[in-house]
């Protein structure tokens, strides 16, 4: 087991390295850098001015050396300019003394995530704070989505073809066919706009960042949860119907076990193996929903941050955001693998 986890973590780190390098490469393509220079300076910069801006800020080094510095395995760049020295590990133009006192290495291995050009702030705390906000959102989403999805799936799959099955399956198909930007729009239109006039909930969730209430937080949570729910419910249903036709269920039935006992004791554990992995693999998709919903409801969390970073080519922020999301995705995959092993005794080591 230990070896297995170690190997998985190895693969995870390799994946994360590959992905961050791709992001690094894409964000450091020249047109992107040019755009960055122009947004930081002004839009009427000449080609030469752009070049000098980029040079002063170390953007024109070879890509691999820049990537190594960002990782913290190569010493940060320093550059003598007219009025002093600039470097990766210091802010702005400083004196030679200061640069000598500053650390040589300052990449993510040293805990230095860089500086956001959009928010004019250190990336580390910025991402952490936003992650916290999104964590709150996700917690409520999961709390709503998973029990609901599993319940619908199990109830529908218990008796295939029954009226309960048909109606619950229809509900889950409709929800999977409704992306967040459609359901969100409809929810806001129906429950929060003045035209319909119900005004039960708030159409924005900005206030929920400090103080989440049912009133201002329910719609965004529901919007994300619904889309994911349908998919998990359908998986659970499929798995449940398959298990219910398995021979060992017939064995249990012909033992004289009651229907309730068959479902609870024999079917459930077997039926939940497949959906468990699905729930975990849902995470990269849920992130999608988070970005849409946070934009739609103006909730300034991690998804909103991603949009800001990507829209303005805020390189270091974007890198941190991708590291964070990749780590989240890979961690859930790891958890899903381990959980699968524990749910399914056939794989467990004897």
């Amino acid at each position, binding site marked *: 087991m230990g070896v297995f986890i170690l190997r998985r973590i190895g693969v995870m780190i390799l994946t994360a390295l590959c992905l961050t390098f791709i992001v690094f490469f*894409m964000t450091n393509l020249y047109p*992107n850098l040019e755009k960055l220079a122009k947004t930081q300076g002004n839009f009427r910069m000449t080609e030469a001015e752009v070049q000098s801006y980029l040079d002063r800020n170390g953007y024109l080094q070879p890509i691999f050396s820049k990537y190594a510095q960002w990782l913290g395995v190569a010493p940060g760049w320093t550059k003598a300019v007219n009025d002093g020295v600039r470097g990766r590990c210091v802010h702005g133009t400083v004196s030679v003394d200061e640069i000598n006192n500053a650390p040589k290495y300052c990449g993510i291995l040293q805990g230095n995530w860089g500086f956001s050009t959009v928010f004019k702030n250190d990336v580390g705390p910025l991402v952490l704070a936003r992650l916290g906000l999104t964590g709150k959102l996700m917690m409520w989403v999961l709390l709503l989505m998973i029990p609901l999805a599993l319940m619908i799936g199990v109830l529908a799959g218990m008796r295939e073809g029954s009226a309960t099955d048909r109606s619950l399956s229809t509900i889950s*198909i409709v929800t999977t066919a*409704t*992306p967040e930007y459609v359901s969100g*729009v409809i929810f806001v239109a129906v429950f929060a706009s003045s035209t319909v006039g119900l005004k039960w909930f708030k159409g924005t969730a900005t206030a929920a960042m400090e103080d989440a209430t049912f009133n201002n937080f329910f719609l965004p949570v529901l919007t994300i949860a619904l889309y994911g729910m349908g998919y998990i419910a359908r998986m659970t249903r499929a798995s449940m119907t398959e298990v219910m036709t398995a021979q060992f269920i017939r064995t249990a039935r012909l033992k004289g076990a009651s229907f309730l006992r068959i479902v609870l004791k024999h079917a459930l554990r077997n039926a939940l193996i497949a959906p468990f992995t699905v729930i975990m693999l849902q995470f990269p998709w849920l992130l999608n929903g988070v970005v849409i919903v946070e934009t739609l409801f103006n909730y300034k969390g991690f998804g909103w941050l*991603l949009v800001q970073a990507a829209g303005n*080519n805020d390189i270091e922020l974007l890198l941190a955001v991708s590291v964070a999301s990749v780590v989240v995705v890979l961690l859930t995959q790891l958890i899903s693998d381990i959980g699968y092993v524990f749910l399914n005794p056939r794989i467990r080591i004897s």
Partner: protein
Amino acid sequence: MEPMNWWAIIAQIFWQFIPVWIALILLFSVSFIYKKRLGLYGKLYDSAIGLIGFGLVMFWVFVGVFGAMDFIITHDPLSQVSGMKNKPPGTPMRGATAGEFGYYLLGGDNLARDVFSRVVKGAWIVTQIAPLATLFAFMVGITLGLPAGYYGGRLDILLSFIANLILAFPVILLFYLLVTPEIVATGVPSYMATVLFVFPLIFAGVLLNSRFHTQPKVRTPLLIIVLGIMFWTYLSLVSEPGSKVDLLPSSLDLFDIPGGILVVFVSVVFVNAPTVFRIVRGLTLDIKTRDYVAAAQTRGEGSWYIMLWEILPNARGPLIVDFCLRIGYTTILLGTLGFFGLGLPPESPDWGTTINEGRKLLSIYLHPALPPAIALLSLVLGLNLLADGLREESLKD
């Protein structure tokens, strides 16, 4: 002129869709008569769910096709008419000229364009891009998934790693990185297109060669003709004058695809292909243990013949079902792109963009955002139902 009431609006919309109704009735009655001879498609006519789904999908396909032929729309979807800004459904048009339809059936949007015509035009964009992109994703996924599952070993490890890499990437982030004007300027999407669009060629080439290599007289001319045509199409597709990939003189270039559409297309294929890869790989692992595969091996068939002619046809059931589901998913992705204003031009009538435009004034005006939202919902729902129906019917064999 008086505004139209709701009944009149519904009746008028129904009337506008007349060509669609005729086409649907024709399609259904012809298929129903010959359903015994139509295989899996014919069996669909035994499943209520599948039939509803198929009806919804074909409705939008016909709306798209006839809309593109300017049959259904009442106004130009891009032209702005003064005084029609955010007007509610059924508002009469001010200063309508003779021969022009006098009302905005579903009202006007924020830029005073006709919502109804925009939704109809949007159907064409979706029904064009989504199935094609899905088809390309399947070509890539199949061409890589078959050998990964069949040979296993290092190739499998490498390809699976790459697939998982792409899958671990948050889709939105990928789109933000790929679908920006700056990236288009670097030519990265064009290079990706050059690589991704080769796969159908490889697929067709290997498919025909493995089947006919025993008869060189048939094989060689067949391959030259098929691959020749495909290669020309391929070059026309990837090369665009003025972009980084400009391989074909414009006199030979069959058609041009605007960079914006191409990049959207490429990213959608890129995102979908790994999932298809995983499905195909899993199916291959299962089917390759069958005796007919062993029989093919013992008579010395080549690996590609076995993969493409012995394994792939027997994996078609789950693949067809996934194809339907994936078109739905691609439609949602396209909407997401539109929602974030990525790729497609801002005045584009596609549903995602329209929803994004409409949501800004949502608390006051519902009518610009709701119709495209409901259109998208019903199309994806139709695809899901169709997939469910197909799955049910294919299991009955």
